[in-house]
């Protein structure tokens, strides 16, 4: 009797153990499937491709519209002196707001992250948003007329800040582990002297990256690709 009892108890407990083990196996394999699915879902890749195509098409459209407005402007400006003056004022504000591509003499700064021997360079952040802000500030103080970072035009409303694993400038991502090119149009000698002033380039940045400066007679800086919106700021009319 006692023997039978113990046999049954062992059987029941083994049932329990087997059930728990298989259940846990099932759960864990389910979990790993879920995480794998998130990593390389083909749907996201397809969507990404489609969106990239969309971008190309929209860019083409922008170009077409740009040439059209240029034509209209050219026609309008030839009419009389007044329209000529208006056109000039328009061009000036456009340069100011970054609405046109500009070229001229200036300075190019290359910031190349030093490759780490221990191979952890992709993990740590070598270029900080504050470093870029400082350099841009320095360039602005030295009367730079147009500045771009990795061909992203900086305007009066551009922000430079860390977001996730990149630096966001005008809603565009700039990787902080790859080479960053800062272009500035202005008097190149003044720009150079401003940048070569001690601490103009932060010492931490100089430690982590190779910073080289190049003077150039012809730099082109692309235009700001988005439209300005003023929702809250309204001009005050003077009587």
């Amino acid at each position, binding site marked *: 009797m006692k023997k039978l009892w113990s046999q049954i108890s*062992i059987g029941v*407990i*083994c049932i329990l153990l*087997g059930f728990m083990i298989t*259940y*846990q*196996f*099932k*759960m864990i394999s389910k979990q790993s499937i879920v995480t794998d699915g998130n990593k390389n879902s083909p749907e996201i890749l397809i969507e990404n491709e489609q969106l990239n195509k969309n971008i190309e098409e929209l860019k083409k459209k922008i170009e077409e519209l740009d040439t059209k407005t240029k034509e209209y402007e050219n026609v309008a400006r030839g009419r009389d002196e007044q329209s000529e003056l208006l056109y000039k004022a328009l061009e000036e504000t456009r340069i100011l707001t970054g609405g046109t591509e500009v070229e001229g003499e200036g300075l190019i700064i290359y910031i190349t992250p030093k490759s780490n021997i221990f191979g952890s360079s992709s993990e740590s952040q070598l270029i900080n948003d504050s470093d870029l802000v400082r350099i841009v500030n320095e360039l602005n103080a030295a009367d730079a007329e147009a500045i771009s970072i990795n061909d992203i035009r900086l305007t009066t409303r551009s922000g430079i800040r860390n977001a996730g694993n990149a630096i966001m400038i005008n809603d565009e991502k700039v990787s902080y582990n790859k080479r960053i090119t800062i272009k500035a149009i202005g008097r190149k000698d003044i720009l150079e002297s401003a940048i070569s002033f001690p601490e103009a380039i932060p010492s931490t940045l100089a430690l982590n990256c190779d910073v080289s400066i190049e003077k150039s007679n012809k730099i082109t800086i692309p235009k700001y690709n988005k439209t300005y919106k003023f929702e809250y700021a309204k001009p005050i009319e003077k009587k």
Partner: protein
Amino acid sequence: MVAFVGLLIGIILGIVWNVDIPVKFSPYISVAIFACLDSVFGALRGSISHNFRADIFISGFFGNAALAVAMVYLGDKLGIPIYLAAVIVFGGRIFDNFAIIRRLLIDKTKSHS
């Protein structure tokens, strides 16, 4: 023999029966499995050395599992991984028991031949 049949039934039950235990209990079950495995090894050793007692086995099975789960819960609340203590102790004991089982079995086969 009964143990193997029981295990088989349990495994089939686990595959077929789709009971829903919340995912957050997953670590608890893991540690409980470890505790149960420990008592099963203990029982195996007991049955081979002929001093197996069902009451000790059953109380050990459930008691170990409950204690391990309690440890995981406490560690979760206190922020220290106490469950490591359970894992280490049970792991060590499983190896100990296995060593003794091995010795007993080898001795048995030697005495037979």
